[in-house]
């Protein structure tokens, strides 16, 4: 009963809800982790958090109108996220205000609206559901939606890879050879919103950011190439989903936080042990070369 199979595989083989949860979370990691890498490289790590808050009123509106139904809540979240991203981007491009400040303004307004909407009809339990999701309750519709989001994201990342890299590395150069700079920026914000919305179904608005950012931040300590970084982040993300769900199953812990905490553990390990981590860079007395 306590062999490796029953410990590591059986929960997913024996319980369909666990298999769905694993499938959904793995899919999410596949798309959200590379997006997180680019967010981090663009020094927008906290933008994901702000956008996650911005999604709330849309999800709440969907919930108010249709109850706990995944599709309207998702579409509502998508609309709210896109509106906030576009508004913040436009304000920063048309005025002296920088994007971090305009985004802060819009997401806070959005968050307050969301909380107010939920409290108008729902209960604290409903709010908890919107904020923290439920990976164990993924139905076919939700899985399908996540699948579409992942396909769109990976397609866009492959298609615009070169522009995304150039826009991060040398934006002025990109503007000198192409008009893609601004469209790619907004496309990228769109991908962030899309993946947060996908993540919110499973992990809730708040923890969806965790799956996006923690593996990306961890991957930074392992490699100095962006391609490898995306792969490493995705690997860490998927491993965290698997290990987190197992932990949640065996120890009867809530699944979303378990996944994110495992990702957090991966971050700490990377921070300490990665080739670019703190131990190798600082603590170990190392010999130096002559050139």
């Amino acid at each position, binding site marked *: 009963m306590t062999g490796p199979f029953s410990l590591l595989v059986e929960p997913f083989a024996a319980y369909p809800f666990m298999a769905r949860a694993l499938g959904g979370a793995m899919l999410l990691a596949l798309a959200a982790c590379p997006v997180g890498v680019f967010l981090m490289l663009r020094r927008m790590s906290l933008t994901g958090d702000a956008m996650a808050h911005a999604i709330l009123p849309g999800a709440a509106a969907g919930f108010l109108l249709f109850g706990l139904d995944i599709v309207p809540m998702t579409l509502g979240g998508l609309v709210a996220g896109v509106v906030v991203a576009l508004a913040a981007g436009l304000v920063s491009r048309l005025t002296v205000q920088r994007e971090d400040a305009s985004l802060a303004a819009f997401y806070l307004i959005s968050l307050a609206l969301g909380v107010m909407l939920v409290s108008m009809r729902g209960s604290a339990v409903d709010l908890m559901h919107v904020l923290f999701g439920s990976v164990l309750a993924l139905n076919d519709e939700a899985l399908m939606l996540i699948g579409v989001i992942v396909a769109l994201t990976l397609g866009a990342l492959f298609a615009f890879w070169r522009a995304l890299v150039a826009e991060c*590395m040398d934006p002025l*150069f990109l*503007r*000198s050879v*192409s008009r893609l700079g601004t469209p790619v920026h907004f496309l990228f914000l769109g991908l962030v919103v899309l993946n947060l919305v996908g993540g919110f179904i499973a992990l809730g608005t708040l923890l969806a950011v965790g799956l996006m950012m923690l593996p990306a931040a961890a991957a930074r300590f392992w490699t100095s*190439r962006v391609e490898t970084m995306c792969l490493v982040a995705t690997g860490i993300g998927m491993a965290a989903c698997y290990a987190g769900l197992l932990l949640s199953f065996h120890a009867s812990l809530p699944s979303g936080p378990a996944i994110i905490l495992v990702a957090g553990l991966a971050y700490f390990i990377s921070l300490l042990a990665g080739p670019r981590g703190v131990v190798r860079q600082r603590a170990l007395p190392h010999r130096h070369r002559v050139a």
Partner: protein
Amino acid sequence: MLNKAPAAPNAVEFADLTLGYGSHPAVHHLSGGVRRGSLTAIVGSNGSGKSTLLKGLVGILKPMSGAISMAAGQRLAYLPQQSELDRSFPARVLDLVALGLWSRRGLFGRHSKDDKARLMTALSAVGLEGFEDRAIDTLSGGQLQRALFARVLVQDADFILLDEPFNAIDAKTVADLIALIGRWHGESRTVMVVVHDLELVRQHFPDALLLARAPVAWGKTGDVLHPENLLKARNFREPWDDSAPWCGGPNAGHDHDHDHDHIHDHQHHRQRDHGHHHGHAAHHHAQEDVSAPPHQVQA
């Protein structure tokens, strides 16, 4: 930059060009042309409009009034100031230089074997053989600038714009990069370089444009870097002035007419416009003048 020889058409023409930010001009009423195949240093103090002019040329900044007319069919290469580059980005030297393939391959085009060979040739031309797999965050300032010049090489452009490429670069590297610029000049490419070191300009640049928001002088380097011109440029006040009066139009408030007579000579020569400045401006840029927001004159 007199265009007396009719056989050398200009790579670009500025017609009463004003570029700037908000209502404040950074390049004020610039007219003239850049000869194809010429090598021009753009000089002037900080805030005198040098980088802004390059951004206008590349199309990153739209004119507030006036116009920039590029000769058709030219491929442009632009090297922004190093500070614009994110040096912490996780990429190899090869990835950075490969950005120069953009005009050839665009967003989707696969990099061919020839492209790879082109990248390696460019790296060896700037003295960075063996550096292709190095992470860019491990390069010294000079090595990074060499890599960026390799990117310009890969772009294989007819018109090359370099913004302060020698800032904080050691003498050996400057000499090597100057040699590359000389090679481009020898290949009849048009080159404009923002430079602060006037000695370097005197030695290596046949033409110079001295900016102090408005053009102070433009032509043969020896004439442009005349002490009288340099003094004029030095007296230019950098900070923009929110209480500056509104500029009455493209040619109003031309207290600097006498400073760049030859530029206007050239304009008249080219456009056969016998009216004074007001004449040609009104004639060629009536539309821009009407639609352009008013901007403030400064200093």
